[in-house]
Each structure stands twice: as structure tokens, then as C-alpha cells.
């Protein structure tokens, strides 16, 4: 495992993504809310391009104190990304599948050194 230079943080806008290849691995590098995340671009369902679909806020149901539903809302803080093939949805911060967190995309560490961004792969 070595640090592979991916690009400059100043050229990587918030909300932007890059799909990169390092050796055999295809990796999606996200910048979300100032943080970098990198995951394998192979969906756990059928190998679709997991990191290339929609990024969408998590849908959550809000409940009143008596547990009656106030309806569905988009989360203010949690973001997901969705595989474009059949809609497997993964947590941006962990790469875990939303409905079954035991399923996790392979996560790669991202190291930022000054303005330079490296993926450990």
C-alpha cells in the first residue's frame, strides 16, 4: 500500500468526484463538506459503477414525541451516493449500504498533505 497522488485539493471542488484507476482498482474519490472519501467503484450488488450515480441526502422519517409520523424529509447532515444501475445506496462517510450496513464498499484512506491529496492503495 502506497500513497498515490490524486490531485490538488484546491482544484477539487466541494461536491465534485473523480473516478480514478490505480493498478487494477477503480476508485471513486469524493469531496463532501470539505472532507475526502474514497471507495471502490464496484457495486456490491452486481458490480455496477457504484460511485457514479446520484449523490442525495438521506431520507429520514421524522416523528412527533407521540411517535406519529411527520412525514419524510431529506437529512440536513447525512449524504448518500446511489449506484446508477439498480439503486444500491451507500453512506458517504462509511461506504456502508443504507439498509444493510454489513455490506460495505471497500474504503481507501485519503491523506491530505498541504494542498495535495493522496489515496492509499
Amino acid at each position, binding site marked *: 500500500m502506497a500513497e498515490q497522488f*490524486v*490531485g490538488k485539493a484546491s482544484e477539487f471542488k466541494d461536491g*465534485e468526484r473523480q473516478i*480514478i*484507476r490505480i493498478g487494477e482498482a477503480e476508485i471513486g474519490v469524493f469531496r463532501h463538506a470539505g472532507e475526502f472519501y474514497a471507495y471502490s467503484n464496484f457495486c456490491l450488488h452486481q458490480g455496477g459503477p457504484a460511485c*457514479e450515480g446520484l449523490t442525495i441526502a438521506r431520507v429520514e422519517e*421524522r416523528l412527533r414525541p407521540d411517535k406519529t409520523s411527520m*412525514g419524510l424529509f431529506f437529512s440536513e447532515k447525512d449524504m448518500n451516493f446511489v449506484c446508477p444501475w439498480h439503486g444500491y445506496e451507500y453512506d458517504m462517510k462509511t461506504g456502508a449500504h443504507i439498509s444493510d450496513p454489513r455490506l460495505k464498499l471497500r474504503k481507501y484512506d485519503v491523506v491530505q498533505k498541504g494542498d495535495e491529496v493522496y*489515496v492509499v492503495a
Partner: protein
Amino acid sequence: MSSPERAKSGAKPGLKPAPKAAKAKAAPAKAVAKSAPAPARAAKAAGGAGRTAPADKAAFLKAMAKGVAPNSAASRKLVEKKGSPFAPAPAAQAPRVEVLRRIPAPPVVVNTPESDAALQLAAAIERMLETGDMGKLQPHAQQALVASLCKLYAANQEAGERYAILGGRTLVAATDVMVVCGALLKAVDLQVFELGMWQSWSAG
């Protein structure tokens, strides 16, 4: 002894045979020299012709004893040779990063004061729905709002400003949409088949 015979037996004129220990020492060097084609070939050619000066032969022997000198033509040849023990160990190849695609961030929305006011009103309506105060926004106000939004959206479409009527971060149930669409059609005395006809004649 004739020259060809000397070449065969390996005896060198004017040189004492090397002592046994020295010979043993030189053995690995010989093994190396065996695969060193350039000096060996040159020497063989020279020796074979019988025209080699003793000095050349001495140089040849020295080279044989020393093995292949680094940075010599012979060593370079050996390095090039595939599978040669002189070839450098293949360096662990650092995987290169290849950017396959860049997916840009969604466009940033810049609000106007009017948009801000509309968003505040929308948030207030959402709060009313949450708390169940549905009567707070009275029907005449709702009618004015729906009418002006209908006209604004249609005018934008006409002007070529195409965008979805509901944003990505809106959760409107399909039932709500059917209720509102039905009510709008009824309000302007249109039947669903008329809507269908209009859609099939136009790009709407």
C-alpha cells in the same frame, strides 16, 4: 606446439600455468566469463587466427580472472540479456493513477431576494403541515399562490427555460400530485383526454 594446439589445450606461451588455488579462485569468474560473449569471442577470434600478441592474451586472461568489469561493453550486454544474473531486479512498479472521469459538483444556486422570500414562505407552509395548522394559509391565498406559480412556470417553459417542476430535494407523494393535477384540470374545465391530446400534438 602449434598455435591451434595451444588454443585447444589452453596453454599460453610465455606464461606459467596458474597455481591450482588460483585456478580454483578464478573458477566462478570463468563461469561468468562463459556467458560473456564479447571478450571471449574477441579473444577466440584473435587466438584462433594465431596472431594474438602476448600482451593481448595477458589482458584476456586478466579479464577472465577478474570477471566482467562493471560498466564495460560486456557487462552492458549482460545486463541487457534477459534472465541474466547481471540484469537488475525488476523494480517494484508503482501503480500509476489514471483519472477516468471527473464528475462535477451540482451547480451552486444563487438566490435573489424574491427567491429567498419564496423559500421562506415554502418553509412556513412545511411547518404548518408538520404542526397540522393547515388552515393558517387561507384558500384565497393558496389560490393566488398556485395561479401565479402556474403562470410563471408555463412562461418559463415557453421562453425555453426548461427545468423540472419539483426539485431533487422535494418529497411530494404521487397521490398529492394526482390530487393537484386533477384539481387544476377541473379548475380550467379540461378533461384528461384533452390533456392527452394536447400532449400528443405538442412536445409538452
